[in-house]
């Protein structure tokens, strides 16, 4: 057990997995010699050698496609996409291949693959170093989608993802790669598909994940001073979705607000609003609210305006209570 940042926790998770299982390999652009542009895999190439920590050519399709082949023959590849914004050249391999191979082969083949990708804004990365593409993958049957918000979960979910027999897209909120420290146990597993109630409250349910959790928390604390008690749920896994936890909370509070960085339209917030409206309709006392990125590309200078920061979440919580 040690105090780790998310970067260190992820590294420790990969290191443990690579020690425990010789079939775990890491591949991606710059993951070896420099240990990844965010240093998540720093030192792993020295420790496990270039055959298991592979600096690949510049092609995300090649990285994921090759990793799928590895996964079909006994390896447990972790493929790093340098920024989630660069995952689209691998979209066909993820959506048409990784997601469908088990199904289309009647279960003969499986693809135990983890695709790690730093995602989200807050580092002044503009259009192409800030995106949150998780919704695309949540619409793709056959994939699981994970998004941790703290070092402990990051490691525990990563270990669970590596153990998982199916392809997992693992989004890492890079804005908080080094912002938070946590006690992180050795050999920890956090099961996929379980949300966490981060703060209990009876008035309104606030649903967030990734880096926005801290903004949600700040907003919750802000409105607490006005007497609004927020129940904050950290999704942790988007697919499978822990509907049970969400439903229980919304049935209790009768109100909910969802937060994500991705654009509003067809973002994962839409799925959450729909599911909860369908399931908790008679318990709802106010319209659901989504606080999200705008329906524009991710900007550079004005990213503080674009992001659903506490300054936008708190008014939404108040509004949820007004209605």
């Amino acid at each position: 057990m040690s105090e780790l940042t998310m970067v260190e926790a992820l590294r420790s998770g990969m290191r443990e997995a690579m020690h425990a299982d010789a079939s775990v390999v890491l591949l991606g652009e710059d993951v070896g010699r420099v240990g990844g542009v965010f240093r998540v895999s720093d030192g792993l190439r020295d420790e496990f050698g270039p055959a298991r920590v592979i600096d690949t050519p510049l092609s995300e399709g090649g990285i994921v496609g090759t990793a799928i082949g590895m996964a079909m023959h006994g390896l447990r590849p972790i493929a790093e996409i340098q920024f989630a914004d660069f995952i689209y050249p691998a979209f066909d391999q993820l959506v048409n291949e990784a997601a469908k191979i088990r199904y289309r082969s009647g279960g003969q083949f499986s693809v135990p693959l983890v695709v790690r990708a730093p995602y989200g804004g807050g580092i002044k990365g503009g259009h192409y170093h800030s995106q949150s593409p998780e919704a695309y993958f949540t619409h793709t049957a056959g994939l699981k989608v994970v998004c941790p918000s703290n070092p402990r979960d990051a490691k525990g979910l990563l270990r669970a993802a590596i153990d998982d027999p199916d392809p997992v897209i693992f989004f890492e909120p890079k804005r908080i790669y080094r912002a938070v420290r946590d006690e992180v146990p050795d050999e920890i597993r956090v099961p996929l598909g379980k949300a966490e109630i981060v703060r209990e409250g009876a008035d309104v349910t606030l649903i967030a994940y990734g880096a926005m959790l801290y903004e949600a928390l700040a907003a919750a604390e802000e409105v607490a001073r006005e007497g609004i008690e927020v129940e904050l749920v950290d999704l942790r896994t988007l697919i499978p979705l822990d509907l049970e936890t969400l439903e229980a909370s919304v049935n209790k509070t009768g109100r909910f607000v969802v937060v994500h960085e991705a654009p509003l339209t067809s973002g994962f917030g839409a799925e959450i609003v729909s599911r909860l409206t369908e399931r908790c309709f008679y318990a709802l006392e106010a319209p659901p609210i989504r606080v999200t990125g705008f329906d524009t590309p991710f900007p550079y200078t004005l990213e503080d305006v674009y992001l659903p920061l506490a300054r936008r979440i708190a008014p939404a919580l108040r509004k949820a209570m007004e209605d």
Partner: protein
Amino acid sequence: MLGNTERPGGERGARAADPDLVRVLDDEGRAMRKPVLPIERRLALYEAMVRSRRLDERLERVQRQGRIGFHIGSQGEEAAVLGVAEALAPEDWIAPCYREVAALLHRGFPLEAHLDNVFGNADDPNVGRQMPVHFASRAHRCLSVSAPIGTQLPHAVGLAYAMKLRGEHAAVAAFFGDGATSSQGFHDAMTFAGVMKVGVAFFCRNNGWAISLPAHEQCAARALADKAVGYGIPAVRCDGNDLLAVFEVASRALDTARRGGGPTFVELLTYRAGPHSTSDDPTRYRDPDEVSRWAARDPITRLRKHLEREDAWDIDREAALLARVDAELKEAIARAEKKPRPSVASLFDDVYAEPTEALLAQKREALALDEGGEG
């Protein structure tokens, strides 16, 4: 193909692959040198080629009768497929395109299982989830056919890498067409195979067409084999309608792969004698002269002439073979056609190893409706 490779301007540009084709049999089936493949195997392969052809012809008829929705065959390319299949060791893998079912049958995949897939019935190894002729058999070390072109190629590279890391000395035979060389998967696979030095033999069935696009409009290179040089991968061009040449070239490429010598690119020059698939009408875009020119180079006829020259084949044997194959196919098709379709419940299996709650809810809904009647 078009495309100049030198330029008047003074600088010397990149140069092209040797246009020479590896051949063993001439167009009349005369062996230009002693074939490596023993005569019994030549006979067995001849039978396999004929069986493949008859299967395609029969299933095209079945499709026209509306008994199956779709078929895609390999008429004219049997030597390219089976010559490679014969060169495979049991531990080698196949990363198929879709015209290679004969290679899988050659490995012992049951005809019945193939037809179960064609009819999408409950016994289909793929549980009726994909279109006909989208085969897969882990037991026979053959990956799952994907319709998207070229996507199997990086899988072949990763699989070969996995074998290398695990200390297995086996090769991957990756199949694809001329059209696939333009795909993202091809570029990725060649790049990665080159630098990873994995044991993949890339078999490009250059059958002259990608649906309606002739190969010289697919790529301006003089030869598709020229692509390999740009990835640091050795290339060979081979007469793909010459079973004996294909076998020899494939054997060397696969052997190199098994010995850790890295990838080879093999361009198999052949011709898609039939339509692209039963959805296609090639008379709309192909010159009938071209079709008949290539009919004269048919790989089955060529091998038969060769066997006849060797006194290993005659009309009686031919007639007996056809009778046997036709009976087998007819019976097997009838059996597959009678089987029930997969259960509604099966729709929800294999999305993940364990179904999610969301899937279980959807399954309950579908089953309830199904029991409610109609449909």
